[in-house]
């Protein structure tokens, strides 16, 4: 915002205007951009999710609304706008109405500190990371409010489970984030990105084995934070109808819906900025267009993986979820923080060892993937039905 304010002051050249005015205008512009992102991301993400889900299941997905279903999300948004917002009779009116707002606000506020490119952040806070983690935790309050105020047993159960899950996975998420902070030496998102400049070998995933592990664990914890598969017990359709947002309809449901997708965006953005080099490109040197395309590409890849994982893994039971959170992720993330601290304090001549180990880990994952690809060559392609389609 500072940068935006000074940019505005310089380009318009009006000297008599107090700085606070530029700050306010800059802040409002940044808020406008964040709102635009908040509105557009779910649109794109819902369409991508529906299409990817369909192709994984050998079907086509939305095809009739617009060219290949591009206008499908707009149609959904339209429908939700015009739907009647029903309130249960015995519900706690104030909490019922406030809850979607609180959840939405948590996700929306966290967008402020996310960078879009080099020097392009709505609010370049020095404690940006802490702010983001804090804001995403505010949604838990909204979820509990929603579950309680719905006056519905299933909603309450779903809200309780969701709150327990999100709070449990805050710990490994914070430790994973802390690993990147230790490696970079700052809580400022911009500085963390800048610390990874200089080519793909300087990204934290490849700079440190602890960075690699922390990235994987941050990704898993992020999945749990946003209630995505395999951690989607709170909104499991077959188990809790729809969990804490059962009783919501119309625009209120749209708020929950959008908040979930924006949370996905925040998790993907965190992963990209903290471990995958932020706006830096693959080759050393200044990234093109202030790195916006690079950051968007990395975020897009991570979001695609999140959508992809939905159709790969079965849902975890609530006790398995807690086991994974507390017994696996928490100790391992603690180890990564410790290891990152050791690495940062080691002399520079030993850094090459850490990098080699990180590349070795990447190699192991690549080898596993290649073996998995070759093992699944038998996955049937159902030639019989495809041949008969030629008849029509």
């Amino acid at each position, binding site marked *: 915002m500072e940068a935006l304010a000074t940019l505005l002051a310089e380009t318009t050249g009006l000297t008599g205007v107090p700085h606070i005015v530029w700050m306010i205008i800059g802040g409002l512009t940044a808020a406008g951009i964040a709102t635009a992102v908040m509105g557009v991301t779910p649109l794109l993400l819902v369409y991508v999710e529906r299409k990817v889900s369909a192709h994984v299941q050998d079907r086509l997905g939305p095809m009739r609304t617009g060219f290949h279903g591009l206008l499908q999300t707009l149609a959904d948004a339209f429908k939700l706008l015009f739907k009647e917002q029903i309130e249960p009779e015995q519900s706690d009116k104030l909490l019922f109405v406030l809850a979607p707002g609180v959840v939405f606000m948590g996700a929306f506020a966290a967008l402020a500190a996310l960078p879009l490119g080099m020097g392009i952040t709505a609010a370049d806070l020095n404690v940006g990371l802490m702010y983001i983690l804090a804001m995403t935790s505010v949604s838990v309050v909204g979820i509990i409010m929603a579950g309680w105020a719905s006056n519905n047993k299933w909603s309450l159960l779903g809200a309780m489970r969701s709150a327990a899950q999100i709070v449990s996975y805050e710990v490994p998420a914070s430790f994973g984030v802390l690993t990147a902070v230790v490696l970079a030496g700052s809580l400022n998102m911009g500085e963390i990105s800048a610390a990874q400049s200089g080519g793909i070998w300087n990204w934290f995933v490849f700079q440190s084995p602890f960075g690699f592990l922390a990235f994987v664990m941050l990704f898993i914890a992020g999945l749990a934070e946003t209630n995505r598969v395999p951690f989607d017990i709170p909104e499991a359709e077959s188990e809790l109808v729809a969990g804490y947002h059962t009783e919501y309809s119309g625009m209120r449901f749209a708020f929950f819906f959008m908040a979930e997708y924006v949370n996905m965006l925040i998790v993907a953005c965190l992963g990209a900025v903290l471990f995958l080099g932020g706006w830096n490109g693959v080759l050393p040197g200044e990234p093109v267009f202030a790195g916006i395309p690079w950051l968007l590409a990395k975020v897009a890849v991570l979001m695609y993986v999140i959508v992809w*994982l939905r159709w*790969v*893994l079965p849902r975890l039971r609530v006790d398995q979820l807690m086991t994974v959170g507390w017994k696996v992720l928490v100790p391992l993330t603690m180890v990564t923080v410790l290891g990152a601290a050791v690495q940062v304090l080691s002399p520079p001549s030993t850094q090459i060892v850490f990098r080699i180990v990180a590349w070795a880990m990447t190699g192991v994952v690549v080898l596993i993937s290649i073996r*998995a*690809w070759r093992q699944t060559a038998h996955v049937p392609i159902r030639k019989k039905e495809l041949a008969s389609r030629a008849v*029509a």
Partner: protein
Amino acid sequence: MRALTEYFKNIYLALETAITGMAVTLRHQGRPSVTFQYPDQPRPQPLPPRSRMSLFMDADDCIACMQCARVCPVDCIELESNKRGKEEEVPETTTGHKKRLELTLFDIDMSLCCYCSDCTEVCPTHCLYMTPEFEFGLVNDDRQILRETSEENRIRMQRQVVGPDESRQGFIYDFMAITKHLKETGKGVPPNPLPETDRWEK
């Protein structure tokens, strides 16, 4: 110590199986779909012969035994017949049964029909049968039931038992008029799809 190795082995297995699963789903993406977009693309293969899609009666083979009307669980078949005079010649059906009664009315209310095909099983001459024709939605002028599609698709979908207007009042199909119309215009009645050996013989 064992527990520790179990712990790490579990973690490795979790990641490895997740990656294998991702490879499977990746192989499915980008493949042509196995679904087709009806009604813009017609169904590539016809339905199997035993599909209970629509009922048809060949009125020239009916001996007016009323078994179908009696067995129907929803009473959707209306059947009336006359006794022939003693001097008249008794015609025969294609299956060799003598048509001792003269059929005067045979209406099936398709809105009541539940497609159980009990009537097709008791018919002794096999003139009442289920055909795999499923595209017989009604399109009124004031109430579009079918989804909007091209003109030729709409005509194609209405081809089953759409006789002249007096043969169909809403959902009540007058099979005598339908059979007469189909045979006179040369369109031919839809054939009985069940092979001879599968029909129940009295």
